[in-house]
């Protein structure tokens, strides 16, 4: 084994910035990173063992202890819970004789919880030894576990057949369904891949391309909405030995799965968007950061890149353009929502913990390995080739006044037809509800946990950068759902689980707020607790990144739009309650000493 580990490390030239890949390779041969490997990494990479552990322990899918033969990562997003996760979990627990978070005594099964895996339209879902299983039911679990015990291979267990489209390709071979319900300008198959790279780039200057993108008013589709053309302009202007284009495919916002569809059905558009961005800013390095949960697409995407290299779409003098040298490498993530923040993503690409950086400097000045770096979302890049083909006016005519183009929505929850809906910006929430067949609606989480929980009074608002901006996630909650106990609590737990912990505010405040919410849910709350939640959350504004700054949104937006739910739970007759139960707290010690305290209840 020692020899194998040394070989892996030398494959990456003892380069500590490639630690993510080194750890992935070690996992693929050993299943985990043992102490001997950690020592070797310390010697070869010239970082201490503690520094190696620092990276391993940051990511959800790295381990320094052996796992089971079959490892089940069951998604715990709110949508999974709404669609029967508990029954599925119990079935796994019974059939595998294992508790959640542990490994069975015989070492056969490990059962773990994981944050949203991008399958919200087909929950409950799990990753089992790297393969995705969706639409799980207790019966299906019993069948699965029985066959696994009988020695069947994971790949043989996809009885449902493939999910259609390119999921059927042997390189993917997955039961994941696309569920594309509505196609607009981007998802319509009317474009011959690499047409722009072959025909337009050789006769255009980078400045020409940037000015078309600028004129189209395309803005980042990941949520922040920065004008793409302007970002490219900055990237082109910044000085550096290398320039870098990064495609952010670390789609981790619970309820979002649009990038999954783009990478399955339209990866050529995404890659071509990267080539065009590379040409425009003068980049030679291209990186696509693929979230670990989409590892099942990795071989397929790598194959496409190989094919592009053989056709001179990557490599040297692309499309015969002298000195346009650009290639793309795919970096696989390892399970950390915060890596979707662009500077955290860059840290992760450099083989470190995915902790956001303070800005300035912005990535366009100093990004990957300190080179000027443009980071764009998958959907943003996929829009580029069609904008260049049809012109900026075509794009401007789509959408609303302040928001050009279309937006791909990931719709899930209590609706008849969860899936992908491409709509023009300016579409109202009401229209989306009518599209997806949602008739009994109490609330909608727009933009994932970091977005807002809205109610009926906002259903006439329009999706746009100025009214209701969104990265694309929409989770619908019907009238029978318990919003505070199930929805808000789940979203808060998500932020607590996914915080990197580096800022004092985001490390501590969400937990303090969660406990306060528990107090209210437990019937011990008073009116002032509701106002405390609002005022306490303020300090999160000074956190470094978007995760920290929005980590209280599930609570604050639900107080804003559903305050009555909180009011119904708090005690009306008193103004103060510690939330502390003395009798309960001293129960054990009373039993131990056989005495009863005299409690002065006021």
């Amino acid at each position, binding site marked *: 084994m020692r020899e194998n580990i040394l070989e892996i490390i030398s494959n990456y030239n003892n380069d500590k910035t490639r630690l993510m890949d080194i750890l992935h390779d070690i996992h693929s041969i050993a299943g985990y990173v043992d102490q001997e490997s950690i020592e070797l990494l310390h010697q070869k990479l010239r970082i*201490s063992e503690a520094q190696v552990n*620092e990276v391993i322990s*940051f990511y959800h899918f790295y381990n320094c202890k052996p796992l089971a033969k079959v490892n089940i990562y069951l998604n715990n997003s709110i949508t999974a819970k709404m669609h029967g996760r508990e029954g599925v979990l119990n079935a796994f627990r019974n059939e595998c004789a294992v508790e959640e978070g542990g490994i069975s005594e015989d070492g056969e099964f490990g059962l773990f919880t994981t944050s949203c895996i991008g399958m919200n339209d087909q929950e409950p879902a799990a990753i089992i030894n790297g393969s995705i299983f969706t639409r799980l039911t207790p019966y299906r679990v019993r069948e699965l576990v029985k066959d696994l015990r009988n020695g069947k291979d994971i790949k043989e267990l996809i009885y449902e057949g493939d999910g259609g489209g390119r999921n059927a390709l042997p390189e993917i071979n997955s039961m994941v369904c696309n569920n594309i319900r509505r196609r607009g300008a981007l998802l319509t198959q009317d474009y011959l891949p690499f047409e722009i790279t072959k025909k337009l780039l050789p006769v255009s200057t980078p400045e020409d391309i940037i000015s078309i993108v600028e004129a189209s008013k395309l803005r980042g589709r990941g949520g922040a909405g920065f004008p793409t053309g302007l970002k490219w302009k900055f990237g082109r202007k910044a000085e550096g030995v290398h320039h870098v284009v990064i495609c952010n495919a670390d789609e981790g916002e619970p309820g979002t799965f649009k990038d999954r569809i783009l990478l399955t059905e339209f990866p050529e558009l995404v890659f071509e968007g990267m080539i065009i961005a590379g040409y425009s800013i003068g980049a030679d390095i291209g990186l696509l950061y693929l979230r670990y949960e989409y590892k099942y697409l990795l071989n397929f995407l790598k194959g496409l890149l190989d094919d592009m290299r053989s056709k001179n779409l990557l490599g040297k003098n692309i499309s015969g353009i002298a000195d346009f040298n650009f290639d793309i490498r795919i970096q696989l993530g390892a399970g950390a929502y915060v890596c979707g923040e662009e500077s955290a993503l860059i840290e992760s690409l450099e083989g470190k913990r995915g902790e956001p950086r303070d800005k300035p400097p912005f990535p366009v000045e100093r990004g990957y390995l300190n080179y000027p770096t443009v980071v764009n979302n998958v959907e943003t890049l996929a829009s580029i080739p069609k904008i260049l083909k049809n012109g900026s006016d075509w794009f401007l005519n789509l959408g609303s006044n302040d928001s050009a183009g279309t937006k791909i929505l990931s719709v899930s929850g209590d609706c008849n037809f969860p899936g992908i809906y491409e709509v023009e910006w300016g579409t109202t929430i009401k229209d989306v509800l009518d599209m997806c067949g949602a008739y009994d609606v109490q609330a909608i989480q727009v933009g994932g946990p970091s977005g807002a929980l809205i109610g009926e009074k906002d259903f006439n608002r329009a999706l746009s950068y100025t009214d209701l901006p969104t990265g694309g996630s929409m989770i619908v909650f019907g009238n029978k759902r318990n919003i505070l106990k199930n929805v808000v609590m789940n979203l808060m737990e998500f932020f607590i689980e996914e915080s*990197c*912990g*580096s800022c*004092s505010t985001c490390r501590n405040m969400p937990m303090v707020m969660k406990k306060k919410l528990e107090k209210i849910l437990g019937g011990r709350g008073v009116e002032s607790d509701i106002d405390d939640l609002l005022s306490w959350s*303020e*300090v999160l504004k000074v956190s470094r990144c978007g995760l920290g700054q929005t980590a209280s949104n599930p609570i604050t937006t639900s107080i804003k739009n559903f305050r009555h739910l909180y009011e119904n739970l708090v005690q009306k007759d008193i103004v103060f309650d510690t939330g502390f139960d003395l009798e309960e707290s001293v129960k054990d010690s009373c039993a131990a000493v056989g005495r009863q305290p005299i409690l002065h209840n006021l």
Partner: protein
Amino acid sequence: MNNTIKFKIDGKEIITENGKTVVEAAHQNGVYIPTLCNFPGSFSKGSCRMCTIKVNNRFMTSCTTPAAPGMEVESNTPEINEFRKSIIELLFVSGNHFCPSCEKSGNCELQALAYRYQMMVPRYPYSFPLKKVDASNPKIIKDQNRCVICQRCMKTIKTEKGEHYFAYLKRGNVLEVVMDKELGKEMTDELAKLAMENCPVGSIIYKEVGFVEPIGTRKYDKQPIGSDIDV
């Protein structure tokens, strides 16, 4: 002269050189901005958020923001001071800080900041987390109860090759700063003492010596934190 930068903090003119951060410039000019994770001479990361300022209506950390000509910085305002106090309180309730029995009392920056920002009792409930004390190292005790995860030991205590003695473990709410067991064995006396000195709180304690200087006569017992900077 080209190298000189002028900008304003709370209306007061600040003169500094190009390349300084806002907090460095402020302290040069007798304007105190509280810090905890910032450590002179090491790369700052803005972890504690104590030095938060407002520039163009945006919150930034003054330890990571380069001073720029004409900048208008807000620092000593009710809004920002309230955030600073809130951060101190959060640090108190998320650990187990018992000042009277702590070797660092009087030299502790967290304690001193709490006095300066007049924290009487934290507004947040204590969490009383179960934390470990690692005394396995021959020279140092690493007490997680008192750690505020400022990264100062991580950034300043290194081997000649640049390897870190201290590093993060895990993430989020259970994040810790731990010591490298192997490297730690060979740590010099000098470095061990420096580690304790650089720690703003009592999380890194040099073994076998204690309370040499009596409580009551220590650094912040005599004067509040920042009074060496305040004009």
